[in-house]
C-alpha cells in the first residue's frame, strides 16, 4: 500500500467476510478504506508480488462497492449520462472500465461496469467502485439517475480477486468452463447453490478473475481457492506494487477530482461514439483535450539507481525547472528497480526525456519511460 492511498480514519473499522481467514493466515491487518485488511502476510510483499506474477494470488477486495443499476428503459443510456465509456453497445456479459466524471470532466472515481441481460430482455448493470469512494459514488449515482433508474447496493456480497498465470487453472478446479472466458467478460455461475458473479479482469496486469459471492459462503470459497495448486494469499502492499508495475492508476493518487481521463492516459476507455456525441459530464473539456491534447499528462518514470521516488516528489526538467509531480512511486519487484508515475507538462512528456525527481532535498536522475513497466499478460482466446 502506498502511504498516500485513501485511508478512512473512522474508529468503527469494518471487517470483511474474510477477516478471520486473514488473521488465521498471519495477515498484518491495517485500516484501509474503512476496513481492516491485510497489508501483507508473513512471507512479505516482494514474495507475494513475485508469486502473483509466476503463480496465482488471492486478494480480498470486499471493501469495494458493488451495486446493481436497473431501469424500466435502457439502463445503459441512463448510466452514460455519468461516464464517458460506451455502454449502449456493450454486449451482455461484457464489462467496461470507465470513470464517474464531474462537470469539469475530472474523475470522481473509476469503476467497472458489467452488463447482463435479464430474462425479459432488458439489461442490468453491475457497478464495482473503489471502497474509499463508494458512499459518495452511490449517493452521486442515485441522485443523478433518480426517476430513471434504481440503484441496489450489495453490502452483503464479498469480492475476491484471483490473479496470475495459474489463476485460470486454479479457479477452473472449482468452476469448470471459466478457463476460456474472454478478457473483460463476466458470467453468473451457480456453485453449490451459491450465486457467483465471475469476471475475467483484475488490477495486476496478469490474467485473472474477480469473484463476487454472498458473505456467508465467502470464507469457505476463499479457502478452497487457497487449496488449489499455486494459490497464495496476497495483501494490499503487493496489490499496490503489482498495479504500479502494470501502469494502472490508483484513485486518490494518480487520478482524482483534479485530473481528467485524458490527462491520465485513459483516452482509450472513451468509445468512438461517445467522442462524437459527448453527452457526459465535462464533455466539452474532454473532447477539447482529445482534439488538442491536454496541458499535462501522466507518464511512467524510472529513477536511476535504487532509491524510490514517492507520491509528492517534484519533477524537474534537466535544466531545473519544475514540470510536474510524482503521484505513485515505489520499488517494482518484477521490474527490478524503482518505478513511478506522475504528471508532467505535455511539452516535456516524450519518452526517454531526462528529468530530476526531488527526493529529500536531493535530485534523483530519472527518465520518462513507457507504461506499463511490466508487460500485461491478459488472457487472449486462442485463434480459431
Amino acid at each position, binding site marked *: 500500500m*502506498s502511504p498516500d492511498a485513501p485511508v478512512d480514519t473512522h474508529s468503527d473499522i469494518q471487517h470483511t467476510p474474510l477477516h478471520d481467514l486473514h488473521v488465521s493466515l498471519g495477515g498484518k491487518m491495517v485500516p484501509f478504506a474503512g476496513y481492516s485488511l491485510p497489508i501483507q502476510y508473513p512471507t512479505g*510483499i516482494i514474495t507475494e508480488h513475485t508469486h502473483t506474477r509466476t503463480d496465482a494470488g488471492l486478494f480480498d477486495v470486499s471493501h469495494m462497492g458493488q451495486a446493481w443499476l436497473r431501469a424500466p428503459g435502457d439502463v445503459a443510456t441512463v448510466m452514460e449520462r455519468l461516464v464517458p465509456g460506451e455502454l449502449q453497445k456493450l454486449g451482455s456479459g461484457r464489462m467496461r472500465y470507465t470513470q464517474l466524471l464531474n462537470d469539469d470532466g475530472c474523475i470522481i472515481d473509476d469503476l467497472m461496469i458489467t452488463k447482463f441481460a435479464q430474462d425479459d430482455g432488458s439489461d442490468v448493470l453491475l457497478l464495482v467502485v473503489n471502497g474509499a469512494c463508494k458512499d459518495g459514488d452511490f449517493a452521486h449515482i442515485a441522485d443523478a439517475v433518480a426517476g430513471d433508474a434504481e440503484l441496489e447496493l450489495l453490502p452483503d456480497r464479498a469480492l475476491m480477486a484471483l490473479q496470475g498465470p495459474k489463476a485460470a487453472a486454479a479457479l477452473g478446479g472449482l468452476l469448470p468452463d471459466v478457463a476460456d472466458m474472454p478478457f473483460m467478460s463476466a458470467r453468473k455461475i451457480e456453485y453449490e447453490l451459491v450465486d457467483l458473479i465471475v469476471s475475467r479482469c483484475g488490477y495486476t496486469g496478469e490474467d485473472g478473475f474477480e469473484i463476487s459471492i454472498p458473505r456467508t459462503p465467502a470464507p469457505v470459497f476463499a479457502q478452497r481457492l487457497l487449496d488449489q495448486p499455486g494459490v497464495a494469499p496476497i495483501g494490499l502492499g503487493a496489490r499496490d506494487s503489482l498495479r504500479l508495475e502494470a501502469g494502472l492508476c490508483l484513485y486518490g493518487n494518480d487520478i482524482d477530482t483534479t485530473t481528467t481521463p485524458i490527462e491520465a492516459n485513459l483516452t482509450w476507455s472513451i468509445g468512438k461514439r461517445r467522442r462524437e456525441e459527448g453527452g457526459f459530464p465535462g464533455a466539452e473539456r474532454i473532447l477539447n483535450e482529445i482534439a488538442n491534447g491536454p496541458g499535462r499528462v501522466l507518464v511512467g518514470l524510472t529513477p536511476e539507481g535504487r532509491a524510490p521516488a514517492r507520491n509528492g516528489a517534484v519533477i524537474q526538467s534537466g535544466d531545473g525547472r519544475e514540470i510536474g509531480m510524482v503521484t505513485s512511486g515505489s*520499488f517494482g*519487484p518484477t521490474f527490478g528497480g524503482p518505478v513511478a508515475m506522475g504528471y508532467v507538462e505535455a511539452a516535456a512528456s516524450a519518452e526517454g526525456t531526462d528529468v530530476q525527481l526531488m527526493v529529500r532535498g536531493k535530485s534523483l536522475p530519472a527518465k520518462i519511460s513507457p507504461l506499463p513497466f511490466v508487460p500485461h499478460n491478459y488472457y487472449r482466446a486462442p485463434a480459431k
Partner: protein
Amino acid sequence: MSDVKYSTDHEWVRIEGDIAVVGITDHAQEQLGDVVFIDLPDVGAEMEKGGDAAVVESVKAASDVIAPLTGEVIEVNSALEDDPAKVNADAEGDGWFLKIKMSDTSELDGLMDADAYKAFVESEA
C-alpha cells in the same frame, strides 16, 4: 560479551570503545517489511542525537532512522547499497547501518538494555 543497547526509535547500538555501531532492530525490520533501499549519510557527517541519521525505504514507505547518539559518522555499511535485503535477513548483524565516533558517551545512559527494549516493544503492541 559485547554491549548492545536499544533506543525507543527501534535502533540498536553496539559499543566498541568510543565507537558505536548503529542499526535498526529485528523488530523494526519486521514492521517495515521488505527493505529495498537505504539512504545512508556521508562518512564525516555529524550526527546529533534525535536528528535524522538515515532513511529506510521498504516497498510500502520511507521511514526515518533517528540518530541514537551524537558524533561523527566514520563508516557506513556500503554493502547495503547492492543488497538492502541484508537488513531483513540480519538486522542486528550484517545489516548494520553506520559507525559513529561518540562525542558524549553519557548519552548511552539514556538507552535501554535488551530486557528493557523487549518490554518496550511489548508495551507498544
